[in-house]
């Protein structure tokens, strides 16, 4: 690469990415659709730090002293709540968006470390059910493949109202990915650019949701935990209303959350970041005296054990990962660099999950590409990654003197920036100041 002539000054406003997008739009007349999550920088868990133990607090010994990580999800109404060994779950990603091998790998990896995986906007496959010890079945506006038999086979039900990447938007699956099997499972013609509904077809508003949740409980004899998943927007009110509607668990997905296919304008411009969303959700739960009674699962940009520990410290009961799990399977791996180059991209930048030609064989329905992912090896990688997240979260919890990751608390942290402090409610480092405290 040649050094750029210093006289060439790039516009901050019209930078090369912006210019290229204007050119692309002018050429095609269609908005950009892509996968992955937001690429812009937003205040995140990186902007928080833990205060390790000191004179006033004592830490726990690294490997010797217990630091538990188990979590029970759905203890409010379900007669069979989910009991997980670690508080890190695999988020809903559809068969259709992902290959059958990728779904199997997610199930294997999650099961190996005692956590749950989740179906997606395309129904439940037998492979996925078979390889997942704990499987959460999504109940989405499209209701693709929805049926009472699978509902009863599930270990929990997740009513999806929205996703962080596109709160207010429906799903998309491009024609290239609608194979015979995907088309059949969704009762759709093969090869269409499928846009799924953004609203549930048979209820609107929180009062209807109460009845809908009751219906699902009646059909499954009040056994299964029922989650409500929302994209982070008006999180305080959404969480309060979901609790009132009778949810056992709430899943809050921040705007950074990944997606298989959404308009770029949606991914980058709708929703609030995960950081304020966690705070608002916990505030709503506490306000209703439901914190820890209705469990909170946080998603959107969870990458490391530090992110896990910080979400816990803010009051989450568990977290959920999408993008990071795919990366653990082999997404964006340099191993496939040649394939990425052929598509005009590079390992570390690939985001075209919608296109169906994923060199890593994960977001595809092409049998040849899908065969590149060995589900056993993928599962092992995911299990390893989940173990690392858990060990990291435990390390941080022990340093703060906690014998369970759930004992972490906001008081264990400080914020690095004024923005992160305002959003998380954690004081700016070295001060006792939280901007905006008292109102939001």
């Amino acid at each position, binding site marked *: 690469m040649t050094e750029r002539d210093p006289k060439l000054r790039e516009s901050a406003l019209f930078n090369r990415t912006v210019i290229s997008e204007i050119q692309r739009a*002018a*050429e*095609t*007349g*269609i908005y950009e659709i892509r996968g992955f999550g937001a690429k812009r920088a937003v205040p995140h868990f990186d902007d928080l730090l833990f205060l390790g133990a000191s004179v006033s607090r004592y830490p726990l010994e690294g490997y010797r002293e217990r630091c538990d990580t188990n979590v029970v999800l759905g203890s409010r109404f379900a007669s069979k709540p989910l009991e997980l060994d670690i508080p890190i779950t695999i988020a809903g990603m559809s068969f259709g968006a992902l290959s059958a091998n990728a779904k199997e790998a997610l199930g294997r990896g999650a099961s190996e470390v005692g956590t749950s995986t989740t179906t997606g906007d395309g129904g439940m496959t037998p492979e996925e059910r078979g390889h997942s010890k704990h499987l959460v079945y999504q109940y989405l506006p*499209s*209701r693709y493949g*929805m*049926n*009472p038999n699978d*509902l009863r086979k599930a270990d929990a039900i997740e009513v999806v109202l929205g996703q962080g990447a596109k709160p207010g938007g429906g799903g998309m699956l491009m*024609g290239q990915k609608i194979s015979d099997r995907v088309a059949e499972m*969704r*009762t*759709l*013609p093969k*090869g*269409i*650019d499928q846009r799924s*509904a953004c609203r549930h*077809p*048979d*209820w609107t508003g929180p009062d*209807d949701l109460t*009845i*809908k949740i*009751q*219906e699902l409980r*009646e*059909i*499954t*004899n*009040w056994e299964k935990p029922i989650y409500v998943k929302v994209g982070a927007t008006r999180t305080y009110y959404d969480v309060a209303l979901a609790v009132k509607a009778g949810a056992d668990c709430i899943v809050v997905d921040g705007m950074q959350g990944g997606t298989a296919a959404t308009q770029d304008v949606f991914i980058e411009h709708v929703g609030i970041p995960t950081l304020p969303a966690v705070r608002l959700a916990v505030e709503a739960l506490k306000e209703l005296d439901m914190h820890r009674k209705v469990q909170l699962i946080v998603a959107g940009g969870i990458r490391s054990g530090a992110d896990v520990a910080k979400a816990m410290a803010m009051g989450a009961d568990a977290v959920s990962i999408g993008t990071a799990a795919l990366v653990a399977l082999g997404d964006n791996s340099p191993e496939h660099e040649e394939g990425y180059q052929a598509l005009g991209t590079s390992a570390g930048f690939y985001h075209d999950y919608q296109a169906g030609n994923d060199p890593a064989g994960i977001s595809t329905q092409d049998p040849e590409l899908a065969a590149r992912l060995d589900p056993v090896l993928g599962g092992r990688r995911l299990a390893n990654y989940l173990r690392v997240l858990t060990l990291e979260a435990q390390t941080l919890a022990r340093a703060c003197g906690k014998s369970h990751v759930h004992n972490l608390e906001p008081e264990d942290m400080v914020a690095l920036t004024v923005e992160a402090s305002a959003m998380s409610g954690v004081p700016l480092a070295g001060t006792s100041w939280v901007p905006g405290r008292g109102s939001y």
Partner: protein
Amino acid sequence: METIDLRKDSVRTLNSTLHGLPADTNKTAWTVTNPDGTHNIAVGLDAEIDVTVKGHSGYYSAGMNQKATVRFEGNVGVGVAENMMSGEVWVTGDASQSAGATAHGGLLVIEGNAAARCGISMKGVDIVVKGSVGHMAAFMGQAGNLVVCGDAGEAFGDSLYEAGLFVRGSVQDLGADCIEKEMRDEHKEILANLLERAGCTHDVSEFRRYGSARKLYNFKVDNASASA
């Protein structure tokens, strides 16, 4: 004939009793009295039984039904027979909105009128409405047939996929990508069969057929330089 009185027993008792019936049960005829608008009556049934509900029922009546025949003698609330897989659901009165929503199979007959979004996202069910339907009927309908003996409201068949629509009366207006189509013999056969099963005496020639223009099936992408 077994009877459950919803003034004495809860809907939980009703549903768990019906779910608990063994496959070869000889208790195949059930009557539910005093529904009084209760929600979730006879949801998730999965046995070849007949259930008659005497009075008005609430939301999701006979939701996700499989195999059973459920007859509501009165009006029903939102989402009757939603996501039905098989079996039959009959409503002698009117149905609120989203009747038969997302249903994959079976037959839903509404003797009165159905409100908005009847057959929304239908995935294979057959629905016969003897009266009229409100706006956005068969919205995003994927498969199955909707027969309307009366009139259809605004945006009929909006964003339709492959569901087949038949209307005897007037259609206020068609939704995006829904068009009138030729009624060929194969369609007449489907329609005649559904009318007969629903106990309707109308002649098929009185109906018009509507379906998807299939123009929204793929995104329109230009290639400006190539066409210049």
